[in-house]
């Protein structure tokens, strides 16, 4: 199949073609991965770190923007810091096999904490920094963490508040000392202080130096390298155990697939507890030797990315969505000439941009127009997004709206999709350059084997898959088959070109009472493509028809309200406004039209909808920490609203308990209106899928 496509391309375009060479080379990639894995190379992260210090000691390894200035550490300095840190931790009593919780945003010292723990054979357990105390208590207790390395006072306070549930926790280390001066420092330490103490201890005794080196040498690739807790879309978080070998293999797959090397730059801003960040900002950086940039604060990521000019990016669709929404909102405020120009060239990009990126034939006029647009619009836009130097960008974690995906590709950003899971050490499928489709997630990644079972569930096997869930053999047995495949829990199929297409969670793809297919996420994603809709929840399993509840996007709709003299005091008021309902009704109408035009989807059109009176929030348990909607939970919580959707009533009263950021609870009450939507006759031929 691939040969055919390459042939077609060869005829069409005779110029040198870098992208296609990558595609053709993918067989070679596989063999070289196997070869390098078996050669006597460093097999743990501390060993790789020392290799970097030897081979590229003067190159920058970490940057962190602090006090408005990018502070940097070379690989040599990083290795030195980590070595001292490891000694400091050893002096505090950290031993092989101990678990070390890491809590906070992306900071060099927290990444070093992982490396220092691994140096001693201890296992880092990164935890979502914004998880509420109860969730954090569960993970820290389940992982039996004896040390916790945290970012600042907020995390220290949070862990102190649950200390009685963590009998095993002995020491806590922090990165930022602000506000902690008056705390009891018997078991609380400044990370810098621990590093300094380690340095002094090493200076004082050459024996300690040798002992520390032996400790590192004792580690091997098969050792447990890290435990990553899954965010818990369903039930309690599970601890995914990955060995050094698993993670290094995963990192190697990605590095070789896209030719990453030491000259690359990434910005680390995703939760450190997410497998994506762990592989992209830690494992691949150490393996390929490229630089990890830590932003100043979570709010400055876009500006910081611009300053650094990252060459490689990884982000959930939400991040790309936010950037686009902000731009579109600002463009609405621009002058009429600018707006005209902008929309005209976006049209040009839509027509030719992707073809140019894919090296497909494009008429000369198109090329010239696109070049002009690149100068006037696309270039500045890429610069604004901080994507000027981007070689390759990935989106994963959730399906991306096709329009959103095409937008970025059309302005010249090589955005690709990958499909991954924590259990796989991230990679399952990836899109090779030149074979990008908006609605599939690509071909199996190198070294990954995929099988689709009878129920449509995707199963995979590779050298990077996990060794089991920590302290949960039952769940492990449920997930792993006897022949070493992992059940992904997702339903999907291979299309005619060999690309995997994911429909939904296997257990979520349902049926309406009349037997029509009901893929909730598919419908939700169609809705979420509209900048005005932030979240959508579709109901319909076993029901007569599909109904949705949506969250409006306060930025986009708020801006619209300002321009249209719609007065509102709160989210709730705006959400209940008639004109807002009219606007959302229009979007739903378009979604229904497109569903009607697709095979098998005609029956899944939205018949009724409402706009929720509050934003769905992870603090209230309505979203997971990775911002996925928890459909079942929402259906229970908003039962009166769901009933109103189906019993034909015009409106329903609801009051819900909400959790404020400080942990206090309150109640929000509202009367939420329900509206009907227009349905269209299914136009697509009923094609067998």
């Amino acid at each position, binding site marked *: 199949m691939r040969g055919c496509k390459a042939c077609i391309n060869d005829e069409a375009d005779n110029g040198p073609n870098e992208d296609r060479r990558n595609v053709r080379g993918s067989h070679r990639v596989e063999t070289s991965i196997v070869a390098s894995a078996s050669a006597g190379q460093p097999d743990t992260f501390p060993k790789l770190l020392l290799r970097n210090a030897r081979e590229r000691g003067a190159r920058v390894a970490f940057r962190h923007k*602090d*006090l408005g*200035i990018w502070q940097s550490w070379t690989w040599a300095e990083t290795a030195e810091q980590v070595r001292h840190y490891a000694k400091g931790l050893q002096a505090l009593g950290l031993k092989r096999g101990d678990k070390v919780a890491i809590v906070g945003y992306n900071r060099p010292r927290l990444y070093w904490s992982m490396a220092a723990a691994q140096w001693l054979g201890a296992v880092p357990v990164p935890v979502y920094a914004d998880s509420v105390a109860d969730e954090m208590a569960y993970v820290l207790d389940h992982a039996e963490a004896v040390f916790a390395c945290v970012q600042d006072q907020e995390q220290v306070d949070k862990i102190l508040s649950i200390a009685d549930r963590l009998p095993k926790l002995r020491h806590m280390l922090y990165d930022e000392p*602000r*506000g902690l*001066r008056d705390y009891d420092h018997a078991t609380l330490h400044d990370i810098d202080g621990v590093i300094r103490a380690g340095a002094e201890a090493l200076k004082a005794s050459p024996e300690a130096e040798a002992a520390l080196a032996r400790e590192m040498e004792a580690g091997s690739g098969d050792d447990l390298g890290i435990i990553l807790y899954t965010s818990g879309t369903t039930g309690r978080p599970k601890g995914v155990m990955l060995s050094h070998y698993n993670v290094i293999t995963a990192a190697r797959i990605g590095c070789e697939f896209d030719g990453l090397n030491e000259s690359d730059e990434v910005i680390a801003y995703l939760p450190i507890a997410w497998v994506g960040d762990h592989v992209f900002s830690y494992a691949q950086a150490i393996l390929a030797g490229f630089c990890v940039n830590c932003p100043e604060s979570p709010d*400055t990521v876009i*500006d910081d990315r611009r300053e650094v000019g990252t060459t490689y990016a990884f982000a959930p669709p939400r991040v790309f969505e936010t950037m686009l929404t902000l731009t579109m909102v600002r463009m609405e405020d621009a002058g009429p000439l600018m707006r005209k120009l902008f929309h005209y060239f976006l049209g040009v990009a839509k027509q030719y941009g992707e073809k140019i990126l894919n090296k497909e034939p494009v008429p000369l006029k198109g090329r010239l127009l696109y070049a002009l647009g690149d100068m006037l619009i696309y270039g500045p836009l890429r610069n604004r997004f901080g994507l000027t130097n981007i070689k390759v960008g990935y989106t994963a974690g959730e399906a991306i709206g096709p329009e959103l995906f095409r937008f970025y590709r059309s302005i010249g950003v090589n955005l690709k999709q990958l499909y991954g899971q924590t259990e796989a050490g991230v990679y399952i499928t990836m899109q090779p350059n030149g074979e990008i489709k908006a609605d599939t997630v690509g071909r199996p990644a190198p070294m990954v084997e995929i099988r689709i079972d009878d129920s449509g569930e995707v199963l995979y096997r590779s050298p990077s898959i996990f060794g089991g869930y920590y302290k949960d053999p039952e769940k492990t047995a449920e997930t792993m088959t006897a022949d070493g495949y992992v059940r992904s829990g997702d339903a999907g199929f291979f299309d005619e070109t060999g690309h995997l297409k994911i429909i939904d969670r296997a257990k979520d793809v349902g049926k309406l009472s009349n037997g029509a297919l009901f893929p909730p996420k598919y419908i939700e994603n169609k809705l979420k493509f509209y900048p005005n809709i932030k979240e959508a929840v579709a109901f319909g399993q076993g029901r007569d028809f599909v109904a949705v509840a949506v969250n409006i996007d306060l930025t986009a709709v708020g801006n619209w309200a300002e321009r249209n003299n719609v007065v509102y005091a709160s989210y709730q008021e705006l959400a209940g406004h008639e004109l807002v309902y009219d606007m959302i009704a229009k979007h739903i109408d378009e979604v229904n039209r497109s569903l009607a035009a697709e095979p098998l989807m005609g029956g899944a059109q939205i018949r009724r909808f409402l706009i929720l009176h509050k934003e769905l929030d992870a603090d209230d348990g309505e979203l997971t920490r990775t911002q996925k909607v928890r459909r079942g939970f929402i259906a229970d919580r908003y039962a009166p609203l769901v009933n109103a959707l189906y019993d034909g009533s015009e409106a329903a009263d609801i009051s819900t308990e909400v959790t404020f950021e400080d942990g206090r609870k309150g109640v929000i009450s509202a009367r939420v209106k329900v509206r009907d939507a227009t349905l269209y006759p299914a136009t697509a031929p009923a094609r067998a899928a």
Partner: protein
Amino acid sequence: MNAEPINVTGEPVKSRKGEVLLSVENISLRFGGVKAISDVSFDIRRGEVRAIIGPNGAGKTSMLNCINGFYHPQEGQITYKGVRRPKVRPHQAAADGIARTFQNVALFKGMSTLDNIMTGRTLKMRRGFFWQALRHGPAMNEEIEHRKVVEDIIDFLQIQHIRKLPVGKLPYGLQKRVELGRALAMEPELLLLDEPMAGMNLEEKEDMCRFILDVNNQFGTTIALIEHDMGVVMDLSDRVVVLEYGRKIADGTPDEVKADQKVIDAYLGVAH
């Protein structure tokens, strides 16, 4: 406050709490026939958070204006750091270590957050206009030093993301924070806050409370604040003075003030 302004690990200042930093004795202030303040006395001790409360028009802001030399009381004395103060002008008070924020945000709307906070350093700049204009040599070094202080404040108040934005475009809560930053840039010994939490939502209020406490804890800055949110006042302050119609009706710890019948009648609302 010692020479090192943003000294996170500075010496503990609590020990000095108790020594009187500023005392107001029998002050009266009139505008023509209107008596804004009549015969009020109280003191502010080093290191404490001192709240001034009272119903609208009680003379709270006038009191702050007297303290920082904006108004001059017709009668009475103000003693600051043990020295009886003659009529001072606001800039002299500022040079003496008194900084303030205003009830209505008074920032330079067109300037960035960074520049606004930098203006708080004006009094500390030593190089003259000539060198500043050249922006070379000693003036440059000086600017770098000041920038460091300003960046520390930006970090402290967690406003990195708005560093380069014009403050006029910022939400009100953030503008208030920038104003606090500008006051902090003066490295004040006494910080006067006029309704620092007015018009803020719950979350912004909590942030502001934390910043005020942190300023007080870490830099040992003495704080006098006017505030209407009773919960905030009772939580934050060490001592509270209550004004009504320009007169002092109570003075003491939050608990004492809360229990005072006159305060309950006058301020906390009892049917007349």
